[in-house]
């Protein structure tokens, strides 16, 4: 009997090791392959966004495949409509920005040189430092590096264009089956724990992604409408930038407001609007912080503010801006892991005493 139990333990351990090996290999393949990672990430995000819609369609008696195709068609139609209606407006803004960029550069250079001269006047030994010149050389080099990386971005974009619809379709159609097949590898003794963990993590991530997208859409809407109302140029670009950077906790709102504030300070065509632009960003972020975050995001994630701040700092130290964006969801996954292990191991041991 002892030999049989030992054999069973050995078998369980082998199965657990194999399960972990398969999961880790899949994660590593998708994260470490530069051609796959962005497509996989976007597909997972789209999966979380569209799952409630497809489920709702299924509840109405529409088959899952038809529901997915319907959502894809609506998405394509929506994109075509946005491209046809918004492109002229955005192109106009980009064109105006390109035309105005030399004016901004001259303006910025002049203002910076003036400030530099004023600041360094009492220190003659720093007379020849030319900080403004160095700053512009650095900016020039950065933009050259960005332009050099453009062909790489273009190829990445094409890969995404091909892979994202394919991966998203598979995930939306067969996520449950994929999960079931992965769970087959889990040894019997750990099956319920692993299944409970996976379900809780997927539920929480789904809610988190949806909440973040609602947040970004609202911030984009408020900033764009506010700027359009106040006749601030580049309203769409400013709105989209504010919405996108909003995903970065704490730093995001400041980063998102920077282009608008710089525009108000540096563009002579936007006179006396600093106060209004500041008010637009403040309103957007107050609504976000006072209403959307506590009611939607915080309820889903349920982390103590100290834990959130610590995780964001740690994320920024380890992986920069990407680290800051993924810090909260990763911390929330860790929280679920700890809770589950605690309740299964410690509570059970306590009950046996």
């Amino acid at each position, binding site marked *: *009997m002892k030999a049989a*139990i030992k054999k*069973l333990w050995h078998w369980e351990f082998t199965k657990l090791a194999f399960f972990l090996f398969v999961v880790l290999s899949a994660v590593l393949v998708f994260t470490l392959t530069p051609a796959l990672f962005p497509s996989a990430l976007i597909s997972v995000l789209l999966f979380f966004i569209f799952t409630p819609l497809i489920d709702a369609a299924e*509840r109405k008696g529409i088959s899952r495949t038809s529901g997915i195709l319907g959502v894809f068609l609506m998405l394509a139609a929506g994109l075509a409509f946005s491209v046809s209606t918004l492109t002229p407006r955005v192109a106009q803004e980009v064109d105006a920005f390109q035309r105005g960029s030399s004016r901004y550069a001259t303006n910025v250079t002049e203002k910076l040189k003036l400030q530099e001269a004023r600041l360094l006047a009492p220190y003659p030994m720093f007379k020849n430092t030319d900080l403004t010149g160095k700053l512009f050389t650095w900016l020039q080099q950065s933009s050259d590096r960005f332009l050099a990386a453009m062909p790489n971005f273009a190829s990445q974009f094409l890969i995404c264009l091909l892979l994202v619809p394919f991966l998203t379709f598979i995930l939306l159609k067969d996520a449950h*089956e994929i999960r079931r097949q992965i769970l087959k590898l889990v040894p019997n003794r750990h*099956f*319920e724990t692993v299944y409970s963990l996976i*379900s809780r993590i997927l539920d929480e991530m789904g809610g988190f992604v949806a909440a973040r997208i609602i947040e970004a859409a609202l911030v984009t809407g408020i900033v764009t409408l506010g700027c359009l109302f106040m006749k601030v140029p580049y309203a769409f670009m400013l709105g989209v930038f504010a919405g996108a950077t909003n995903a970065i906790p704490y730093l995001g709102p400041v980063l998102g407001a920077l282009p608008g504030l710089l525009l108000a300070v540096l563009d002579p065509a936007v006179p006396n609007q600093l106060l209004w632009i500041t008010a637009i960003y403040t309103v957007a972020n107050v609504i976000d912080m006072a209403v959307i975050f506590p009611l939607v995001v915080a309820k889903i994630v349920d982390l103590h503010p100290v834990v959130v701040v610590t995780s964001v700092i740690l994320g920024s130290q380890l992986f920069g801006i990407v680290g800051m964006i993924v810090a909260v969801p990763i911390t929330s996954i860790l929280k679920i892991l700890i809770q589950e292990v605690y309740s299964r191991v410690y509570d*059970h041991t306590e*009950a046996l005493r």
Partner: protein
Amino acid sequence: MAVTNKFLWLDLFSRKSESEVTILSTLKSNQLFVKLSQRELAYVSKTVHVRTYEPGETVFEQYEKGLGMYMIAKGAVDIKLRGHDKSDGEILVTTLGPGSFFGELALIDTDNKRSASAYAQGPTTLIGFFKPDLLEIMERKPETGVKILFQLSKVLGRRLNETTELITTLSREKKAA
């Protein structure tokens, strides 16, 4: 020869594998899924989890957090209770055979702790149906979910009645003694 031909014929044109047939027949005979149509049963069969156990292997232990129920497709399961005293060891309460199910309270109770331990008696195949599966069915096919929940409440109600009757009988016996 005729047998071989029949077997080949079945193998080539039957769209269901042996394990699928086992799942379907186990689900069909289960109290929880008895009201489901063929189509609904086929859907549920793609949701459940088939698990195979070696003789003596633990399915779950008493006081452990539970996630769902198990239906016995093949083999048998011993249900054991831990005695009040540690030295008592475990007492065999019952042995369940094919078609039986156990652990269904975990489907609705959030902090469910298993009230007894379950061990495979011999080589055993169980079909697991867990809370996330039930929630997914409720989300995607609410009509099917409601049928399962209704049957589940019937089963739980019946077990509650049986327990009440047992307690009443025991208290009467105690009073009489």
